[in-house]
């Protein structure tokens, strides 16, 4: 069992934007009923929204030893179908208004506008005894690659977050990130551990209803990816009157140093905390954080390892970096390092493949005081609005579809698509937008004479940087 809800009985566990409250006692009861309806350990799919029903099902599954695959409820129908067919879950926990998508399944229970659907697969894949839940590494593309997290991972990481953010029952975090996204989920996991009240809403920062709910319900914290902070900056957030706000956290990619500074200064001047953090789904959620009192002094840094974790750097020769300001691959050690990946149903029986050590793929340095700075990535991927997008995969997909010379590159939130033939420019861009399901604003196409390559025919991506830096 992850959470002992009986400790907080009458405290509200959740409030939604319509003013509906669910106490911890009610959450305990409702989540246990969902688990009882499933009836035992088996694989389920949880189609997430930032709504009460979604959290009721999720907590029932985790406390009831029923591993859920956490997916966005807005995932495209065909992608969802493919995942259901390849993993063959016994049940789906789905918003009642999406039931019609699954006419062949039987509703066996309903609560808080969510329904439990029985799938009728004859076969089920064996589950490793430590397997707690499965999460995607990128939010929207429907990739069948999941991260396998254990119950111990979730509990350890949530406790560590509680400790370094000093969370207690008086907190009221408001949802700003999808629940199926590891960072959004970690906020729910950690706050339910201390008896806090989660303000759940599907509304976003650009909507009036979000801010009305924020003010009326007295939100104390929110989390954001770098793009969230760009939007807040744009909204001239600094002028808003938010007396109840205590803490803003940031993760999901490196924030621009100018914005880091602006929000650190805003926090310092207004008696609030701005906490830059670092993490990956492969380490459950969090690995590093920059203590709020260092936010202004260590601009551009993602901080130090979270309580219970350890960082070190490994250079190109496989040696540990011991000097400050030298680049190496960031390696993390801690109990929140997950077991590994699953790419098909058979992988669900696999055990721990990492032994508590994660090579993050991020290149980093530490300064004289031991604070870490991310300086690059080992693998070619971008974070677009907080979603990881693999550039080599984009290249492969486009070349496979159009059979033309192509290369993708860019910086976070701005992907550049390089083609040599003008007539493919629009269709290549449309294709990449459709595949990633991200806002078109992030994609620019550029026609160039030729894709720079070395003698062996390998694309020289560095030479493309001149087009966008």
């Amino acid at each position, binding site marked *: 069992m992850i959470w002992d809800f009986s400790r907080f009985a009458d405290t509200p566990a959740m409030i939604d934007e319509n003013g509906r409250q669910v106490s911890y006692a009610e959450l305990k009861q409702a989540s246990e009923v969902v688990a009882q309806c499933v009836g035992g350990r088996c694989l389920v799919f949880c189609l997430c929204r930032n709504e009460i029903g979604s959290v009721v099902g999720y907590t029932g599954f985790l406390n009831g030893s029923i591993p859920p695959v956490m997916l966005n409820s807005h995932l495209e129908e065909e992608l969802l179908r493919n995942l259901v067919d390849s993993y063959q879950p016994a049940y789906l926990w789905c918003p009642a208004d999406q039931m019609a998508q699954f006419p062949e399944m039987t509703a066996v229970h309903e609560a808080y506008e969510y329904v439990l659907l029985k799938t009728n697969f004859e076969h089920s894949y064996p589950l490793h005894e430590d397997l707690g839940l499965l999460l995607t590494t990128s939010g929207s593309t429907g990739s069948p690659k999941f991260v396998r997290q254990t119950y111990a991972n979730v509990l350890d990481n949530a406790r560590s977050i509680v400790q370094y953010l000093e969370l207690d029952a008086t907190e009221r975090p408001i949802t700003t990130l999808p629940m199926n996204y590891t960072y959004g989920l970690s906020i729910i996991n950690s706050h339910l551990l201390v008896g806090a009240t989660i303000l759940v809403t599907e509304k*976003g920062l*650009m*909507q009036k209803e979000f801010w009305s709910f924020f003010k009326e319900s007295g939100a104390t914290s929110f989390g954001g990816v770098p793009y969230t902070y760009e939007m807040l900056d*744009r909204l001239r957030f600094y002028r808003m009157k938010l007396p109840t706000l205590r803490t803003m956290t940031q993760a999901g990619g490196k924030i621009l140093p100018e914005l880091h500074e602006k929000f650190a200064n805003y926090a310092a001047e207004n008696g609030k905390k701005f906490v830059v953090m670092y993490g990956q789904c492969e380490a459950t959620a969090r690995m590093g954080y920059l203590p709020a009192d260092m936010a202004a002094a260590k601009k551009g840094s993602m901080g130090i390892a979270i309580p219970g974790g350890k960082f070190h750097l490994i250079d190109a020769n496989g040696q540990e970096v011991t000097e400050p300001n030298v680049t190496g691959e960031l390696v993390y050690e801690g109990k929140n390092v997950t077991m590994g990946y699953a790419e098909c149903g058979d992988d669900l029986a696999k055990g721990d493949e990492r032994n508590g050590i994660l090579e993050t793929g991020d290149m980093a340095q530490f300064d004289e005081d031991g604070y870490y700075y991310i300086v690059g990535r080992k693998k070619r991927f971008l974070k677009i609005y907080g979603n990881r997008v693999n550039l080599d995969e984009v290249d492969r997909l486009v070349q496979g579809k159009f059979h033309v010379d192509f290369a993708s590159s860019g910086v976070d939130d701005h992907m550049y698509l390089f083609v040599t033939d003008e007539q493919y420019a629009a269709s290549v861009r449309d294709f990449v937008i459709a595949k990633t399901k991200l*806002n078109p604003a992030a994609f620019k196409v550029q026609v160039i004479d030729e894709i720079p390559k070395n003698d062996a025919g390998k694309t020289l991506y560095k030479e493309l940087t001149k087009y966008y830096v």
Partner: protein
Amino acid sequence: MTNLEKYNQAFIDSFEITEDQLAGLKYQDIPAWDSAGHMGLISALEDAFDIMMDTDDIIDFSSYEKGKEILAKDDYGVAI
């Protein structure tokens, strides 16, 4: 260009849609009008009309029609 043409063009460019989709269009009706798209639209409108929009107006801008009302306010004086 008339104000209406400029206004429409900001939507068309930001969301990559056609003019016949504009009437009745609301936030989140189409995938391109999400929070990222909203920010792009506001920038495009601010550039087109050389204005700076207030926070309350940015978050109140929930539809094609609502936007016209907001821009017509005395603060901006853009009659569409």
